[in-house]
């Protein structure tokens, strides 16, 4: 937990949030945790990208989430 809190502090120290007019209360914690999650999922996305590039060099094609994979749910 301490590690998580320090990560949050570090993340919020190097970045700022643009606060706009909103009728919802976004919640400070909910805004700040997005910064942390953005870093984590950004690293994971980069890792997945390079992994698939590397595998494709060896002719291995991976099943990936289509960018619009969720579209089909609403197509008639």
């Amino acid at each position: 937990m301490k590690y998580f809190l320090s990560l949050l502090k570090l993340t919020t120290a190097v970045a700022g949030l643009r606060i706009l007019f909103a009728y919802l209360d976004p919640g400070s914690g909910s805004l700040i945790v997005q910064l942390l999650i953005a870093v984590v999922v950004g690293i994971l996305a980069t890792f997945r990208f390079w992994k698939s590039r590397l595998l494709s060099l060896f002719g291995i094609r991976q099943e990936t989430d289509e960018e619009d994979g969720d579209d089909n749910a609403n197509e008639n």
Partner: protein
Amino acid sequence: MSDSRRIGGSFRDPNGFVFVADGLVYRQVNEGYRSNYDQLMESDLYAELVDRALLIPHSEAGSNLSPDGQGYKILQPEQIPFISYPYEWSFSQLKDAALATLNIQRRALRHGMILKDASAYNIQFRHGKPLLIDSLSFETYQDGQAWVAYRQFCQHFLAPLVLMSRKDIRLSQLLRVYIDGIPLDLAKSLLPKRTWLNLGVVMHLHLHARAQQRYANKKPPAQSEPTSRRGRLDKKALMNICDSLRSTVNGLKWDPKSTSWARYYEGDSYREEGFDDKYRTVTEYLSIVKPDCLWDLGANTGAFSRIASDQGAFTVSIDSDPGAVEANYLQSIGLNETQLHPLLVDLTNPSAALGWANGERDSLAQRCKADCVLALALVHHLAIGNNVPLRNIAKYLAALAEWLIIEFVPKSDAKVKVLLASRQDIFADYTQSAFEDVFSEICEIVRSNSIQSSERRLYLMRRRPAGAS
């Protein structure tokens, strides 16, 4: 506009509101939302979302309809035949609604806009599929901004879905208590420890709840020039968060095999010929009534609802068992049905009017536009399983619709014997003749048929006009 009425649940967003005039639902766009509305319409986002059945289509009506005379635009959206709420949805209905919301968010970001709210109440089922009904949910995306509706998405969709999937399906009912979604600290405290093994749940729910706790009543850090690209919430980062939520939601499953009702029709409720006979009789009754809208109460997986929906009636298929409703919904999706809406409601405690001044969410009965109610194999559950007197049942059902197709299940029936197996029979008045007498006070019995291979009986009844006896 002389005779317009604002919808009770439409007061939070200062950008507009919903009102009803001459029986039609309209949405007013306020002047303050002008630039966002124009961007929605001119950026092709509206056309794309409507084309993909993700957003309710609308036409622009005359500004003279504005109840306060101050609207920038008055929209007349396509009318939805029945408004349902997330606590009335099965697991997959809520999951599909969540995925539709994320799909809309991604598309909005691509068009330079963003969802400013992510309320589950803004999603409704039209033609069997979820879509956004609030055309004012979009605002211009500004570089560096966080997703203001992220917390709302997690409370309205993610927390209930994770609780239903990983703890207990019945926890969806927490949404009835917490009208703005399940508080994340509550969800976190209810979830088993093994959910810490799921990265998406850890980030969006467990750590999110802790961050909320940590920064409660504190201002977030103000915008400053970011020192590096990585430490900034740009559009790509918001897309990544959206993808992560999508992947987390997609990974949540619920298998209804543990509930008893989803396999009801595979059991021995009737011998096969009894089922067929009942099916034939219900079909015949429906051909007499020809309803536009039918409510099937105690529908189980919707076998009899489909007689009506296949005839073209919009059918709300209601059951109290989450497994039965889930099976019903998955079947309707598989068959691409457009006229059937499965709904999770316990008729012994139907959805009440909720929210501010009890006016934000209507009760189940308030939303009834049915001209026919189907109540098959239901009366014994209400009368014997829940001690509701027959007269009360008759009054409630007759108040819902003009026509009633109802089945009487006598005490000699195996299903009633099960209900009485562990309790004293205090139901001396539960007889066929008492049933007919009580219902005849309110309704005219138009037709009546016995069901082959059983001692059950079907009735077609019509409510007597007010004042008639």
